[in-house]
Each structure stands twice: as C-alpha cells, then as structure tokens.
C-alpha cells in the first residue's frame, strides 16, 4: 500500500468510528453505503483522495505520509490549485490523525442507490479534478463586452449560454 493510500485508510478508520458512535441512529446515514477511502494518491506535497461515508463524500487533502506535518497552515479556509481549477477547502483537525483540508462533494448521501454508485461518482470527481480540459470551459461569467447593448441585455441568458459552449 502506498503512503497516500495508507493515509486514506487511516482517515477512513476515524470516520468508521464516527459512524459506529455518534452517527448511529442519527437518521442522516444511507446505510447502503460504508466508509471507504477512494483513489488516494500523491498530489504535489499532499495526499489527495475522496472519503466516502454514509452521510457525506468529501474531497480530502492531507499530509503525504504518517508523521509528516500537513503542508498547510490552519486558517479556516485553504485554496488549492488543481488542473480543473481552484478549489476552496475547510481546514480542520482530526483527532488521532492530524490536519486535513476537506471540500464537500455530496451530503447527505441518500440519493446513491449503492456503494458502487458512490464510488464511481467519487472516482469520476477525482478524474475530473485532475483534467485540465475542465479548466477550459468558462464556468463563470464570460468576459463582458464594454458596450451597453440592449439586445444583449434582453437576450442575456441565451447569449451567455452560447458563449459558454465550446
């Protein structure tokens, strides 16, 4: 097992304990799912992967190996650059594990029919995150034109849709 995969497993152990204790009978869990790390790998100075649980799936960044300090400080938020774009994370301390930065992909998980679906979605999210082509489609407002254009205003929605398509 790689160092990154081991980090994912250890983090999953923490959430397995949470699942068995405070999340039991919370009514928030999709019991068709289980806690599992998905796709943990090295990413620059970090380990990167997705933690799937019965109540959330988060993109997670941690220190690359056991005992290493997390290579990010502890402000509430952390922004990291990926090939698909910039992502904002919540930084927190996990007891017995250390500092992690997490970004919500899904929560709650009721709409996933089974574990395979959740795992497939998690893998697809990681693939998409590391795909530079995702950065090429403008998601935000297309650069606006300087001219005041009534036609553009009336057709605002349609026009920006056209501009957004490749």
């Amino acid at each position, binding site marked *: 097992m790689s160092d990154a995969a081991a980090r994912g497993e250890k983090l999953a152990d923490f959430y397995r304990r949470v699942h068995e204790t*405070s999340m039991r009978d919370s009514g928030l869990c999709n019991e068709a799912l289980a806690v599992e790390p998905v796709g943990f790998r090295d990413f620059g100075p970090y380990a990167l992967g997705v933690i799937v649980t019965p109540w959330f799936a988060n993109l997670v960044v941690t220190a690359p190996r056991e005992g290493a300090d997390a290579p990010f400080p502890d402000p509430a*938020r952390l922004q990291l650059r990926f090939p698909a774009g*910039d992502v904002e994370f919540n930084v927190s301390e996990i007891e017995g594990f250390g500092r992690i930065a997490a970004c919500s992909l899904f929560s709650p998980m009721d709409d996933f029919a089974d574990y395979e*679906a959740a795992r497939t979605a998690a893998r697809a999210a990681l693939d*998409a995150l590391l795909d530079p082509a995702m*950065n090429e489609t403008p998601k935000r407002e297309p650069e*606006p034109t*300087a001219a005041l254009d009534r036609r553009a205003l*009336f057709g605002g929605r349609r026009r920006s849709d056209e501009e957004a398509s490749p």
Partner: protein
Amino acid sequence: MAAIETFYDVIRRQGVTRRSFTKFCSLTAASLGLGQSAAVQMAQALETKPRIPVIWMHGLECTCCSESFIRSAHPLAKDVVLSMISLDYDDTIMAAAGHQAEAILEETKEKYKGKYILAVEGNPPLNEGGMFCIDGGKPFVEKLKWMAEDAMAIIAWGACASWGCVQAAKPNPTQATPIDKVIKDKPIIKVPGCPPIAEVMTGVVTFVTTFGRLPELDRQGRPKMFYSQRIHDKCYRRPHFDAGQFVEEWDDEAARKGHCLYKMGCKGPTTYNACSTVRWNGGVSFPIQSGHGCIGCSEEDFWDKGSFYDRLTKINHFGIEHNADEVGLAAAAVVGGAVAVHAGVTAVKRITTKHEG
C-alpha cells in the same frame, strides 16, 4: 435637465480618489467572480457610460432589503447607492413626495423608455382587486405593471418579491404574489433572502449597470454567482457535521464549542445563498457563526416548511451538484454507471473556479 453624469463624475465630485475608485472596481469584480480584466472594463464603463436610472418600488414588505442595501460595508457603498445608479425614485429614501414623486415615475417611463431598471421590494397582493396595498391612490399591482411595461429589466429584491415570503405564507389572505407571477414579459433577476446580503445586492446592481446585461441566472432566476453554493457545503462548522459532532440542545457543551447545528433545525443543507462565504456586516459573521441554525430565508416558501427548529428529515437536494439548476433532476436515485460519473463531474464543476494558465 443637465447632461447625464457618469458614476465616476459623481464620486470624483464627492471627493473620492481615483485610487479608491479603482480599488472599488477590483473588489466588486472579485466579488462577482470576475477577473482583473473585468475590473478594468468595469472602471471604463463607470467612467464613460451614463448612469442607468433605477426606479425602486415597494409593495408588501418590511423594508429590510433597503436596510440591508444601505448598510453595505464597502467604503463606497453610499456612493454605489446614490451615485452609480441614478436612483430617481425610491419612496422610502427620496425627498420628493406626493404628486411630485408620482411625476418622476411618468417622466422616467417616458424619457428612459426601455432603458431603466425597475427594482421591486415586496410584492403585490391580488385579492380584492389589489386593495390590500394602495400606493399613490392605486393598487400597487397596477403601478407595478405600468412601470414594468417600459423597464429594461426587473430586479426582484428579497424573498417577498422573489417568492412571496411571510405575507404569502398559508393561508395568504391577501393573495400576496411574487413578481414573476405578475410580470411575464420582462427579464427578472431574483435576489432572494430576508433580506439579501448587502454585497450581493450591490454586486447585482453593479453588474447590470456596468455591463448593461443580466448576470447569468439559474433556472429559478437567481444570479448564479451568488446562489450556486449551498450553506452546508461552505459552512465553517461542516467539519463537525462530518465528524458527527452535533449540538443536541441549546447551550450544551457542543453549542459552546461551536459544533454543527443540524439537529437544532439548521436549514443549511437545503439553502443556496452566499452567507457562509460572503457573510454579513462586512464579513463579520452569519447566523450559524452566531450560534443559530440557518432558517433558509432565501428558499421558496420558507415560512411554510415547518418550524425553524424542526430537524430536516428529508433533504431532497442531491448534494452540492444539485444547485438550484438541477434540483429537478434529483428525483431518481443514482444507481451507477454514466449517471454516477455525471454526478462526480458535476460536483467538480461546482467546486472549481477557473484559473488562468
């Protein structure tokens, strides 16, 4: 009437420095999710283009939208309110009254036909021919329709104008009705919230007045730049939710430690707004940070969805990728294959901001 001034002319005359002006443009562009090039375009537009006349009307409402708007924390906020737009009519804050005020409406409608923005705070009640809200001697609904005829676009401020809010709560005796159910032939931007965040309001006005078109809207008509993120996903208490750390009763140990308020009825998991990112009062705090759950005030019919303290039982929204645009797709369960891949890719589209290079 004097030649129409630009926003820049006005703020320079008021003693605002060019440095503050460019800083305002940069900050506003950033808050709109736009890059530096847009800030330059914004500066250019504000320097050269005549100000867009804005008519601000009030139906059934409590004026909390106006209160929020004029408290925008940005140092130039008062200039945004009073200078960037030519706020020709706002019965709450204008000096004119009576016939003089009504004359402004007629003049604007005629002189700026198809060029003015109609900002509406509150909504019209339709029962008894609109008799429950009389404004200038006429039912508000008539005045609204009349001013909407020649408007370029309409901004529906707050939960009242967007969804109906408390006056439309069951049994809605006055038949208070959201703007888009009354005006069908004009572009309408919904800026929901009770009230909306000041920076969101000024951001929307800035965008429309500087670029002369509507921002990108979701399927419910809300600007995507501010309403595509769910409170639950951007909440600073989210790590406590993930770790199963919940407040169980008010003022317990967990409450003091700032744990997750889900069990106390927080509506963060079903609410799309910018509170957990932009926050309130100049970014100082927001309800969850102050220890109270989100009441979901920017969501449709939030008054009729049970107590603010009832725990959400079924969260129909399918995680972060089901923003307002895609809630309709949430009915079917994700069973794997292409649908699961799509869910994953859509989630990444939601969480990423495009970067250059």
